[in-house]
């Protein structure tokens, strides 16, 4: 079973017997009281279609219909590689341009790309990695390695529940979704002279945990969320159909500037291994001061559940671990906990395949060829991009120049970093 064996979360089980039998959390309480990480894989594999996400499309519609609101949308990398499937296209068809047209037609005022924020994530996370690495090499015991990626909200929920003792190990960088929201509601809101309360940020995500993430209290200012609503690829597909648009026949358009510009490094965030590959592309050049000769890191790609590779940083070997699926992540985390981990950096994505196999994607009914086709589409989009390293994104450079200063600056820390909580369920003992 997905929840127990693949993810090792164990939020759901078969309970009761006979006609009363159902799949439910312990004591049939709501999921929020269980160990659920909201990865959404139960929804992705439910054989009867009984499980669904909470639909936030009506909230988005209300915002679009409100003339006093400026509505901004961001789309995650994995969405463009799967949305076409809902309109009869072959798996692996990229619909980036058509999706942009559809979103404009639906009434969004600005159509932006989460990939922009993915580039920003690399700037912050990559800098943090190099900082911890150099301090560690100098013998600073407080610089903990390995550093773990923190883009995946299902994964964040998982370690807060099961490994709270390691909560200072993951990068403090927020996920691209939340970085986007934080920049949209400060820098961008100022630019277009709209109060943050009148700016609605919507995200299109391949993910159901993103719905929870955007509702975390620490990601809002005076009750106004950085990302107001998150809807899944499936919800967007249904929304487009509801508006009587046929994605097949739409022309292709580009994202709006400035938060729609991204490099190939931002695109590959959708695949397992992609975040760490993007980080390596930037960290290598920053650390060694040399230009990367080969941008594609084939050793970091593939669909094996746990992978490892050593990348040569000009004589310094950097050990990298990659896990997708929470059960695989648990294996690497157990090693970290027991001090046996030989990695400098570990990337984790909660869903098998990474975001392309996310709980909010069009259903693939366990067909791994579909996952492979989506992964290939993501790498193809990366290859097409003229710029493929996050630190070369001219809009990212401009953002630091105009607003953030440098990576991990005070304002960057305030807007783009977070902290984690111990959410392990405690047993209450009577005194």
């Amino acid at each position, binding site marked *: 079973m997905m929840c*127990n064996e693949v993810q090792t979360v*164990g*939020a759901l089980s078969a309970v009761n017997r006979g006609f009363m039998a159902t799949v*439910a959390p312990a004591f*049939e309480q709501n999921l929020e009281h*269980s160990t659920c990480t909201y990865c959404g894989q139960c929804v992705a594999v439910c054989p009867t279609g009984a499980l669904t996400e909470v639909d936030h499309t009506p909230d988005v519609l209300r915002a679009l219909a409100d003339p006093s609101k400026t509505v901004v949308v961001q789309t995650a990398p994995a969405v463009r590689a799967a949305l076409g499937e809902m309109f009869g296209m072959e798996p692996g068809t990229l619909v980036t341009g058509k999706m942009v047209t559809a979103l404009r037609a639906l009434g969004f005022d600005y159509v932006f790309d989460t990939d922009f924020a993915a580039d920003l994530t690399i700037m912050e996370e990559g800098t943090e990695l190099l900082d911890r690495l150099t301090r560690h090499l100098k013998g600073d015991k407080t610089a903990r390695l390995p550093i773990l990626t923190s883009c995946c909200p299902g994964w964040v929920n998982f370690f807060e529940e099961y490994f709270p003792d390691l909560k200072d190990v993951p990068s403090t960088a927020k996920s691209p979704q939340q970085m986007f929201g934080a920049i949209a509601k400060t820098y961008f809101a100022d630019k277009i002279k709209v109060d943050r309360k009148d700016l609605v940020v919507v995200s299109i995500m391949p993910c159901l945990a993103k719905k929870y993430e955007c509702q975390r209290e620490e990601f809002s200012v005076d009750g106004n969320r950085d990302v107001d609503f998150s809807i899944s690829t499936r919800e967007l597909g249904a929304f487009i159909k509801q508006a009587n648009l046929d994605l097949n026949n739409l022309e292709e358009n580009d994202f709006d500037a400035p938060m729609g510009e991204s490099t190939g490094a931002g695109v590959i965030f959708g695949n397992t291994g992609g975040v760490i590959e993007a980080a390596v592309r930037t960290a290598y050049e920053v650390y060694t001061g040399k230009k990367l000769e080969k941008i594609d890191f084939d050793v970091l790609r593939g669909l094996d559940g746990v992978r490892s590779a050593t990348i040569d940083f000009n004589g310094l070997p950097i050990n990298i671990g990659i896990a997708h699926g929470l059960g695989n992540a648990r294996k690497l985390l157990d090693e970290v906990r027991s001090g046996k981990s030989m990695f400098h950096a570990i990337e984790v994505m909660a869903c098998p395949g990474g975001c392309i196999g996310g709980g909010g994607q069009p259903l693939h009914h366990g067909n791994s060829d579909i996952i492979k086709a989506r992964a290939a589409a993501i790498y193809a989009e990366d290859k097409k991009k003229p710029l493929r390293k996050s630190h070369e994104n001219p809009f990212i450079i401009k953002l630091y120049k105009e607003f953030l200063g440098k990576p991990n600056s005070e304002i960057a820390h305030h807007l783009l970093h977070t902290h984690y909580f111990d959410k392990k369920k405690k*047993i209450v*003992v009577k005194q």
Partner: protein
Amino acid sequence: MSSIKIELRQEDVNKIKDICASFKNDPQELINVLHKCQEHFGYLPAEVQEVVSNELVIPVAKIYGVVTFYSFFTMTPKGKHPISICMGTACYVRGAEKVLDEFKKELGLQVGQTSADGKFSLSSLRCVGACGLAPVVMVGDKTYGRVAPDDVRSILKEYD
């Protein structure tokens, strides 16, 4: 099934830990552990299952699945005098259902419930192996044979 919220005392937690340890914290021994816990506490409230979950490293949802699957396990405390009505074939054809209905009416309880004062709990079971005495009712360890609905009130009176 909702459960009654209780707070475990430290000695209760220790008792559960001891039980788990006596089975070497082996997750395969879950059912034996639950048997022992129910023997000690009389029932298996959520809090007990949570401690077992921690000790055996089994998701609590899975334990709850086992507890709700087997009719022997219960999450409501049994009354001081647990009443069981046999609903096996022989008892059933000789009118056990009418007897059960009478108990339900007299006590104001459904099967699986315990009276507010904790005195009686009502359950049904399958065949106690005394078909010659059908229909059979058990109160605690005492067996009543050939019970008619009219006898119910006098049986309950014995426990006043």
